[in-house]
């Protein structure tokens, strides 16, 4: 076999054989354009090592020096054996290289999916709702309810068998309102206290407002209730439809001091309001965050009432 030397480098040369093979070989002091008959081919690394190299793996032949017949190509046994071994060795190597990429992709996907799922389940905020039943609604970042917990016995009754999963906050609040009415926890002149807690104070503020509005809207057309949200700015909303019901006045649009929470200046709507419920049930103080006190029962005498056997709640989120 004859080879033309096409290119010379320090440590190797590129030659072209008569069958159109280009090979990298040892540069035995070649010159470009020279024709040689004896080359020592460079052995390529295993497939898995090659980054962008040739797709085939078999090493080029290392040909022995010519003896009597110039045209005969003799492959030494070692070269043949090592070539076979290399070919078989690289087949799985080629496959596994591909598999590595696949594995990496799968791992990335798992990671992404995991993050997505985790975000869904992370509590972003909580809404403490107290009518008489006291409950806590946990939502994730997209305002979708991920947990619902009762904070007292009535609360437990309220939410028993209620499906909350994946429902929006607004929807859940509405539906629980309806339930409360159905079950008799809430009726004309009743009061709903909402207080919010969350990772983002912006969210808290914004949600407080929107819930307030939302609930008022929802309840108008039903009956009059007092809705207290957040910092204890009770806002009672009037319902024009039911006749004869005295509008509930709330003379306090002013802020209360924190200490004054629970001193409801307007006890009247509550009592004659046909409150089917027993006198303001013992309410649990929902877990406090440090600066905000929640509405206490309107009956001042019960302001610190606590059912003895109700466990005190752990502090969930701090702010």
């Amino acid at each position, binding site marked *: 076999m004859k080879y033309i030397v096409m*290119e010379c*480098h320090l440590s190797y040369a590129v030659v072209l054989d008569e*069958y159109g093979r*280009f090979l990298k070989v040892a540069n035995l002091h070649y010159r470009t*354009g020279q024709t040689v008959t004896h080359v020592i081919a460079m052995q390529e690394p295993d497939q898995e090592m090659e980054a962008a190299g040739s797709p085939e793996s078999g090493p080029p032949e290392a040909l022995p020096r010519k003896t009597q017949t110039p045209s005969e190509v003799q492959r030494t046994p070692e070269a043949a054996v090592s070539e076979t071994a290399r070919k078989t060795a690289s087949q799985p190597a080629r496959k596994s290289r591909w598999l590595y990429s696949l594995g990496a992709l799968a791992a990335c996907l798992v990671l992404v999916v995991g993050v997505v799922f985790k975000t869904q389940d992370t509590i972003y905020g909580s809404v403490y709702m107290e009518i008489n039943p006291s409950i806590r609604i946990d939502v994730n970042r997209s305002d979708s309810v991920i947990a619902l917990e009762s904070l007292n016995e009535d609360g437990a009754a309220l939410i028993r068998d209620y499906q909350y999963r994946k429902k929006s906050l607004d929807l859940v609040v509405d539906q629980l309102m309806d339930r409360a009415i159905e079950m008799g926890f809430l009726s004309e002149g009743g009061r709903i206290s909402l207080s919010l807690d969350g990772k983002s104070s912006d969210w808290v503020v914004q949600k407080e407002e929107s819930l307030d509005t939302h609930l008022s809207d929802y309840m108008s057309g039903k009956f009059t209730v007092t809705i207290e949200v957040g910092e204890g700015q009770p806002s009672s909303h009037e319902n024009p439809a039911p006749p004869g019901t005295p509008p509930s006045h709330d003379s306090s649009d002013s802020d209360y001091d924190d200490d004054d929470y629970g001193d409801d200046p307007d006890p009247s709507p509550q009592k004659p309001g046909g409150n089917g419920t027993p006198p303001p049930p013992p309410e649990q103080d929902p877990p406090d965050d440090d600066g905000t006190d929640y509405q206490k029962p309107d009956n001042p005498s019960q302001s610190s009432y606590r059912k003895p056997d109700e466990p005190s709640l752990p502090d969930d989120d701090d702010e």
Partner: protein
Amino acid sequence: MEKEHPIIAQVYAAKEDMLKADDLIRTYIPFIRSEASKSLMRVCTDQDDEFSIAMIAFHEAIRSYRKDRGAFLSYAAMLIRSRLIDYQRREARHRGHLSMDEENPEDGLSMYEKLVDEKDEYEEASELQATRQEIEELSKVMETFGVTFTDVAENAPKQERTLDACAGAIRYAAENRDLLDELLKTGKLPMSRLVSGSGAEKKTLERHRKYILAMLLIQTNGYEIIRGHLRHILKRKGGITV
């Protein structure tokens, strides 16, 4: 040894970059020479074939080195030693036979020289020069396509079957000169025509794009010597593959 750490980075950088590889090798010539001498049990000079083999072995080491193979220089030394041993074994086996290149003491000619066409020095030299010119020309054209001979060597098919498939495509192009004209004019490889004309698998031809490009260029005007050398390509299995 702390000295290893910078070299590992250099090795990895040199794996794909030929220039960096050459630089690295040049730096370590003394090392390579001394390792070769150790294997040969005699002083190895730059002129010895063994030195060239040691250098290509060092280059192979760069290409195949992985961190989990230990220190790079030890790995390279081992590879040099093993290649030189292979070489020596091959030489020893043929020592019993008459060497083609060995000169007959009587007339100063080797058998090889007697058997092939006798050329005098001038002929050989001029032929070499002519070949070199063709190669340089080809190399320039390949450069416009962004391809070097090293690229082609790395991209070329090694298995018989694939080589044949590519040869089919090249034959088809040789018989349809307009294809070659198109190549030169547009600067793009007319792959789809090659696939349909030769019946080879697109995947195969795509894999060896650079190689096919080089071979097609050789079929264009001006590379008679190289084409003459490649006579086997066009002769094999005569006829057009339909």
